[in-house]
């Protein structure tokens, strides 16, 4: 078997990122869109940790922690918005949420 290189981690990250983007673009449920965004955050984290490992510099892991914190904040605010939205419109379907459509 070939040795595992940064490129392998890059490809894994690329695959997860692409799957996340497809989820954001194709799904209609707002909760699943948020879940896909979490997947994208994770794809970014793989890159940070892999390069931190390759360059033997621990800063990459520190930045991954920052990304995790940002993702947690995003999830909290996003789910709060979804709850407020559901209270007003009784739906989690992104197609039916057109309050700001011009």
């Amino acid at each position: 078997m070939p040795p595992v290189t940064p490129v392998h981690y890059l490809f894994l990250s690329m695959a997860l990122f692409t799957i996340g983007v497809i989820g954001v673009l194709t799904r209609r449920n707002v909760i699943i869109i948020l879940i896909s965004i979490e997947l994208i955050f994770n794809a970014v984290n793989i890159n940070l940790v892999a390069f931190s490992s390759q360059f033997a510099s621990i800063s990459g892991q520190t930045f991954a922690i920052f990304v995790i914190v940002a993702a947690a904040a995003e999830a909290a605010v996003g789910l709060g918005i979804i709850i407020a939205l559901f209270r007003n419109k009784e739906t989690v379907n992104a197609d039916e949420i057109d309050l700001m459509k011009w």
Partner: protein
Amino acid sequence: MYQALFFLFAASAVGFAINLLIQRHPIHSALSLIGVMGSLASLYLMLGAEFLAVVQVIVYAGAVMVLFVFVIMLLNADKEEPSDRSKMAKYLGLPLLFLLLAMITVVIYRQFPEDAMVQFGDFPGQTAAIGRLLFRDFLLPFEVISILILIAIIGAIVLAKKEP
């Protein structure tokens, strides 16, 4: 051994991610995301980032996913019906996706020639070093991100609060 483990966890991460997309019910998607998080935590361990692996499990697979599952239960979200896609997306979507992937592949291989690759596994990611870096070199970003998460907490409470 390292290679086999890498491919095992990478395959399970991608498999869970694809399952996340395929499932129609939000709760199944959320559970698949926990699988992705677990696989990634194992990969972080293999990269020598023990602290990050534990944070991944505690914060992501623990706290964030509980939040997601809780909201899904709260909203009693149902299965979503497949929507009618546009014609352009139907015929051009897959070819354009593969074009994008091919372009990224070319860029990655240009950036990393075969002989420049470094082996993983001999780099320790000690927790103490991360803490020292966080509170010494990255003190300002750390404080800024603390304020960010404080604002997020307050914002979430305000957003989810029942209007009087």
